[in-house]
């Protein structure tokens, strides 16, 4: 066990009053990875620290994805001009409390973080043509109040259902609250048939909020183009397959599909997008 010091700092970041944005690498619609990659690219984030994986991930080999061996990573990036810290990380499978506290240790001690934003995708049964409504869950009424001027739903009511467990986002917010760090969990719906690929609209929705809230001044026109391209590809899929079109039409009319039809739609969209259709 290496719990005494699970963090490696390569370089002290020059941050005085920053915000932390955390994205999980394995998120529906590739939301967390894509958003943090995008912010890093646009804001020229510099990697300055990482959390060592040995205490938090099963060290029983490596996962292979898209032909490449993957290893769990938890990397911090600093964007000093925007007073922003970005953490892109795999979700830990053990010692969650220590892991999340390590995240906040880096944020507080090395980055003087004053707010935390953690990203999450919700699988939705709606069609991709439906607007992505952003939901925000704050860890205090005061923090919720600061969200009033932004376009997001702040009225979520939720209680864990039998057989389920709270998300790591909630766990992080709760620990942050205990450390008097205001935090928000941002949730965006991702149509179920884009969950295994990517949902650029959902990504844009989150980036737009962060852009406004944190004053990042990012030009989002490239994301708009990507959304257009994805929508065109999905329109092609509909025009080539009457079955795909029928399924999506029904979702657009708020009709539900059977489990079998859901699975069929996921498979067909996946195949179509993989073929570069």
């Amino acid at each position, binding site marked *: 066990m290496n719990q005494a010091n699970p963090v490696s700092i390569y370089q002290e970041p020059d941050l005085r009053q920053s915000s932390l944005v955390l994205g999980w690498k394995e998120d529906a619609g590739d939301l967390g990875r894509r958003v943090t990659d995008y912010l890093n690219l646009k804001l020229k984030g510099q990697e300055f620290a990482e959390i060592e994986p040995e205490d938090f991930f099963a060290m029983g080999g490596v996962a292979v994805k898209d032909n490449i061996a993957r290893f769990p990573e938890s990397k911090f990036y600093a964007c000093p001009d925007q007073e922003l810290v970005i953490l892109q990380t795999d979700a830990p499978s053990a010692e969650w409390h220590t892991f999340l506290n390590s995240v906040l240790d880096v944020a507080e001690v090395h980055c003087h973080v004053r707010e935390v934003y953690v990203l999450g995708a919700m699988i939705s049964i709606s069609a991709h043509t439906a607007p992505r409504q952003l939901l*925000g869950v704050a860890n205090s009424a005061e923090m919720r109040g600061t969200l009033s001027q932004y376009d997001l739903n702040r009225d979520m009511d*939720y209680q864990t259902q039998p057989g389920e467990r709270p998300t790591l986002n*909630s766990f992080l917010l709760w620990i942050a609250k205990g450390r008097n760090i205001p935090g928000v969990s941002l949730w965006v719906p991702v149509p179920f048939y884009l969950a295994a690929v990517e949902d650029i609209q959902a990504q844009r929705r989150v980036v737009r909020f962060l852009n406004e809230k944190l004053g990042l001044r990012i030009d989002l026109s490239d994301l708009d183009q990507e959304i257009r391209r994805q929508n065109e590809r999905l329109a092609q899929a509909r025009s080539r397959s009457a079955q795909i079109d029928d399924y999506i039409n029904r979702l657009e009319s708020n009709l539900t599909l059977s489990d079998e039809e859901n699975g069929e739609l996921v498979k067909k969209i996946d195949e179509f997008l993989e073929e570069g259709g």
Partner: protein
Amino acid sequence: MGIRLYQEPQLNSPILVASWPGIGNIGIIAVDTLRRILGAEELGEIEPWEFFYPKLVLIRKGVLEYLEFPGSRFYFKGTGEKDVILFIGEEQPAEGGRMYAEGTKAYRMANLVIDVAEKFRCGRVYTSGAAVALTHHTAKPRVWAVPNSENLVPEIKKYSNSILMSDIEGRGGHGNITGLNGLLLGVAKRRGFEAICLMGEIPVYLQGLPLSYPRASKAVLEVLTHGLKVEANLDTLDELDQKAQQRIEEFYQQIPLEIREQLDRLKHVTYPQPAEPGPITEEEERKIVEDVEKFFKKRREGD
């Protein structure tokens, strides 16, 4: 991080009784029933963060109101004869989806429980759990008693409806007690406390089912309350048992007839001494276990 005590009562050489969930929830139902019967007060808790993932979140109007963790709580009661500290762990700090705790976390939690025993100068520790046995669900379960010291054997021999491992057919005094209900015995021994694990029998064909088995909890409590010199009305367990027996019977009727006929023979087991010829031969025992295992394997594959 560790133990948080809400109060520090003066207790007279109390006995600590601990339990975590396990097969049939036999131990935890027994200890929780004892807590209710005694009207035990909350004494403290083991802080959960290092052991558990949260179990519940409540969000109201977009604000995270609270996060709840599985509880690991201590209770106490002065009984007149012997003071009692009860410990109820809502979950075992298991990793990787396992049901039972093992490794560093389990060892640390067992030590925290014994820290409380030490602080209040407990004279003895009891744990309780399940003993998977070749018995029938209509029969009265026995209680297997495993002490952590040779000195306790004569006392255990006086317990009614209880047996030592050496008295159990074909075991030769050997066996394993999985998870924290067992680990605590070892940790207690290491730290100089005498301890006994009381395990209520559960039929082998019920061990894989998500069912409580209050009939065995009652058997454990009968032994425990006698040891604690506590008068306890266990009627609530009879009511629970009736409901459980209905569900078990429904399941039992789903077992193929040829296996059920074998299992029915367990109704007539009379627990002979090891040297005496039993009503079921060793060969027949093996066959029953094999048949039951095959049945469950088939069921799992069919799921």
